[in-house]
């Protein structure tokens, strides 16, 4: 690792102005589990590392009682999300994904904001957040801006952040009643593996008719960026969900995928598995809706 100067700003404005002062020589660090590896491998060699530890509060995932919005500070570690009872009970799709990222050692340090900002196509944390319609708040020299997470990614390793901008937090809007959600990380081994595919499905049912009121089918490693299979979602909405409908939705999602051959899997296999996993996750959503309504 090359030498660098370590800077510890106390406020967002101070962090942004430090970044501006050092331009291309600067890099932000939160958990550091990605950036330190990149520095050790000399893929990047910033002269100034700006720590965000005092800038971004590390608070537990919190839901606003009035608005019902769940806020995840960007500096929340994966382990904090994994251990949150609120997330486990009410946002199970996020729990499914987060508990299988890296190892305990990584999850203790790595932050959810870092997972998003790195923007790798295989980022497990991203898919459930897109399925939950999450938005992100960003702070930079020009002030604050917000956008839907699904629009945050522009390519492999690329996102909309401009130089010096900081991802501050992630906001998940309140969920409809009778909502079930599930994520599956598909890979060859369970631990310390990047997914060959990541499939997240969220279904909301109408109270009376039990028809699908809202559907989200989100795929990772099935295109250069995480994406929503809009055709499959449109197909699901308004229908009574059964195995045949889920099967068809899976086929549509597979057609929408831009899968490719890579060292972790070949394209045709990935496409087949998109269809299979969309159906299975849809079934899991229905099971979870059933369990929740039985409890209530």
């Amino acid at each position: 690792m090359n030498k660098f100067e370590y800077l510890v700003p106390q406020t967002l404005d101070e962090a942004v102005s430090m970044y501006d002062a050092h331009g291309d020589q600067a890099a932000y660090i939160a958990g550091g589990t990605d950036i330190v590896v990149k520095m050790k491998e000399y893929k990047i060699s910033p002269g100034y590392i700006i720590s965000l530890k005092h800038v971004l509060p590390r608070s537990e995932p919190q839901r606003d009682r009035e608005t019902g919005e769940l806020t995840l500070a960007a500096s929340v570690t994966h382990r904090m999300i994994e251990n949150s009872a609120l997330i486990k009970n009410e946002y199970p799709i996020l729990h499914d994904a987060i508990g299988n990222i890296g190892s305990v050692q990584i999850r203790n340090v790595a932050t959810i904001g870092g997972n998003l900002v790195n923007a790798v196509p295989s980022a497990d944390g991203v898919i459930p957040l897109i399925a939950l319609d999450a938005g992100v708040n960003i702070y930079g020299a020009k002030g604050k801006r917000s956008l839907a997470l699904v629009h945050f990614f522009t390519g492999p390793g690329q996102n909309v952040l401009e130089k010096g901008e900081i991802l501050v937090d992630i906001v998940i809007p309140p969920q409809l009643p009778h909502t079930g959600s599930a994520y599956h990380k598909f890979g060859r081994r369970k631990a310390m593996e990047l997914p060959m595919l990541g499939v997240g499905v969220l279904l909301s049912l109408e109270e009376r008719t039990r028809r699908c009121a809202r559907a989200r089918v989100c795929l990772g490693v099935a295109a250069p960026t995480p994406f929503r299979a809009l055709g499959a979602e449109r197909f699901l909405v308004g229908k009574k969900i059964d195995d045949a409908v889920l099967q068809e939705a899976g086929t549509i999602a597979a057609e929408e995928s831009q899968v490719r051959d890579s060292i972790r899997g070949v394209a045709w296999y990935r496409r087949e598995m998109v269809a299979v996993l969309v159906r299975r996750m849809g079934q899991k959503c229905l099971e979870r809706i059933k369990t929740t309504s039985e409890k209530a």
Partner: protein
Amino acid sequence: MFNEIEFTCNGNLTRVKIEPHWTLLHLLREGLGFTGTKEGCGSGECGACTVIVDGLAVNACIYLAVEADGKDITTVEGLADADGTLHPLQQSFVDNGGIQCGFCTPGMLMSAKALLDDTPAPDETQIKEALAGNICRCTGYVQIFDSVKAATGESREDIRVVAWKDNDERR
């Protein structure tokens, strides 16, 4: 450029000057002589460098030493009693054949210690998940899981850290 940091290492308050690009692993091994913690892959994949920071298992090889400022750190050297009596976990690894070449052992011990401090009576799945980030190339996982499981029979009071003190003559 040097940064001065202060942290607790195996019970001893430690104040050192470090360079910002040092990893915690470099500080522990090269700066403080705690060579029990190993460097395996150097990129957070294998867990050989696992130490406990404020109660949490972390990979010291990708953790910047500057980030240790103000933290409480336990390495494998902090497990045994000052008189050399092994920590119950260490003894359990010996008794149950949890050690072959020994390179992964310090990391295994620290991941297991962090688990037991948080969950004194873990089930098999919890043990496997806690050790998922620790790779053993002698493929002794079954014995390692057995070793951890056997140590969970010890009472909570027995599982403790007794660090070497500054006046310990072995230091």
